[in-house]
């Protein structure tokens, strides 16, 4: 296990460095003078010069890269152009809202998908199975930037059951979590159903039945437990995807998280803040994948990545 951990860590470092470098390069891809793009053409020469110096654009590219990495190692991602405080502190203030939304979306996806996938596998070929597959296909085909407004029309405007937007109690969470979680539920139904169908033909399930175990015990202890292994990977990978998906969902429902912050920063051309947000989401995604690999190995010692 120790050797496996070291191998994965060695693979993680270049990937993380690559992702960080890509985020650094982003601001330098701005066509023309990045400072002029950020401040607009009407800004004075003194303002432009001051920003150029504060962002370090007056220094050679390699020096900028070195200080970017050094600052990053001490948690300094720069300062926002318009909002008070450092980028790190702005992100820290918005992070709880995004995590709350992502966790609730994941729970909603699990609550919908697990029973549906199990029933579909138990009644394979029946109407429940067909409905589950149709649900999965529809869930994968409904983009969240349409699903969100659609749910808003039905639940907030027509029925008046939930608030239209903003963050508050549980009622505020319902629609954004559903919008964000539906795609994940659709994938989980497919994976878990396929996984259960694969497991139920294994010898140990036949043996459990031959021993005379109750059917509920066979399903819960032998089938579901083993079928869940493949779901864990998808679940954590999808959680990383939820962070990225929050950009659109948070914008639709005016949810004050990292996603909305990123979109607002893009609209105001606050590139240091955009850089910080993208970096935060990308590194979380990489680290979540890393932890998933470790968890997977811990849960199922048969897993091998060529170590």
């Amino acid at each position, binding site marked *: 296990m120790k050797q496996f951990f070291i191998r994965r860590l060695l*693979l993680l470092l*270049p*990937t*993380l460095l*690559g*992702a960080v470098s*890509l*985020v650094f390069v*982003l*601001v330098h*891809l*701005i*066509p023309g003078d990045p400072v002029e793009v950020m401040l607009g053409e009407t800004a004075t020469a003194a303002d432009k010069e001051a920003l150029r110096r504060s962002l370090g654009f007056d220094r050679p590219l390699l020096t900028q890269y070195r200080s970017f990495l050094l600052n990053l190692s001490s948690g300094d991602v720069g300062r926002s152009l318009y909002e008070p405080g450092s980028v790190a502190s702005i992100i820290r203030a918005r992070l709880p809202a995004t995590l709350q939304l992502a966790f609730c979306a994941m729970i909603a996806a699990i609550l919908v998908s697990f029973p549906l996938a199990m029933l579909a596998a138990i009644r394979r070929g029946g109407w429940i199975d*067909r409905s589950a597959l149709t649900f999965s*296909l*529809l869930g*994968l*085909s*409904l*983009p969240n*930037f*349409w699903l969100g*407004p*659609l749910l*808003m*029309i039905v639940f907030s*405007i027509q029925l008046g059951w939930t608030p239209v937007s903003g963050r508050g109690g549980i009622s505020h969470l319902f629609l954004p979590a559903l919008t964000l979680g539906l795609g994940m539920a659709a994938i989980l139904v497919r994976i878990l159903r396929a996984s259960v169908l694969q497991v139920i033909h294994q010898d140990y399930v036949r043996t459990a039945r031959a021993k005379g175990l109750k059917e509920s015990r066979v399903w819960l202890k032998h089938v579901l437990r083993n079928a869940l292994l493949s779901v864990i990977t998808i679940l954590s990978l999808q959680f*990383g*995807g939820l*962070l*990225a*998906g929050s*950009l*659109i969902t948070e*914008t*639709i429902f005016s949810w004050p998280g990292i996603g909305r912050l*990123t*979109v607002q920063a*893009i*609209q105001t051309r606050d*590139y240091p803040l*955009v850089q910080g947000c*993208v970096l935060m*989401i*990308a590194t979380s*995604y*990489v680290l979540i*994948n890393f932890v998933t690999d470790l968890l997977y190995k811990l849960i199922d010692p048969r897993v091998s990545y060529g170590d």
Partner: protein
Amino acid sequence: MATKLWFYIGSAILILLAACSLLAPWLAPHDPLRQNLDKDLVAYSSDHPLGTDKLGRDILSRTIYGGRISLLTGIATVLISLAIGIAAGSLSGYFGGWLDQLLMRLVDILMAFPGILLAIALTAVLGPGIDHVILALCLIGWTGYARLVRGEILSLREREFVQAARCLGCRPERIILRHLMPNLLPPLFIQATFGLAAAIVAEGSLSFLGLGVEPPTPSWGSMLNDGRQFLLVAPHLTTYPGLALMFTVLALNVVGDTLQERLQSRTP
């Protein structure tokens, strides 16, 4: 039987979409950019069967032309990504060594980002526009094809027919193009079907955030974004582009799923 039926329905929707996109100038009842402020936010009229938007532009015409943009972006993204992915995956899988290591680490780094995040970040710095959208989507799109091609070539390159070609003195490019590529086409075609669906949704997402096509050019994503402000008074603004987008993606997923099932059932 039911799967076959869904496959035919999906294919019919795609053919219809392609025909509508090609024949848009003849099918669209109005100029999609023509404004008529006297007829803004009309829900239905004989002249505008799907209504009009806040500037009095015909929704039916804009939905038809919007399909053109979605399909154009999707196809261009898939074709360019395929070309880069096939080239990178073939070089990586066939020659191996440092080139393989270099290309696959690059793929790892790009795949370390959630795809849509990188596309949003890139279009945010490059500015809106269809060419920037295609560039951003290709940057992340080729990695999946490269992985697939590399994997397939690794499993094929020691097979007898490849060894025989090598013994006959065939050059590597001929072996890749004439002997390996025909075996790669079915899985690549299936991945391209899902890739097209993903590219159409991604273009919609970018346009929805104002980073895709520039106004007043219609796109399903930008129409949804425009309509969002009028959900209460004119829900039809979001309904029709949303339905068009959903049916297109649904059709692509159904066709892709069916083809994948067929391929898997043929694989020994």
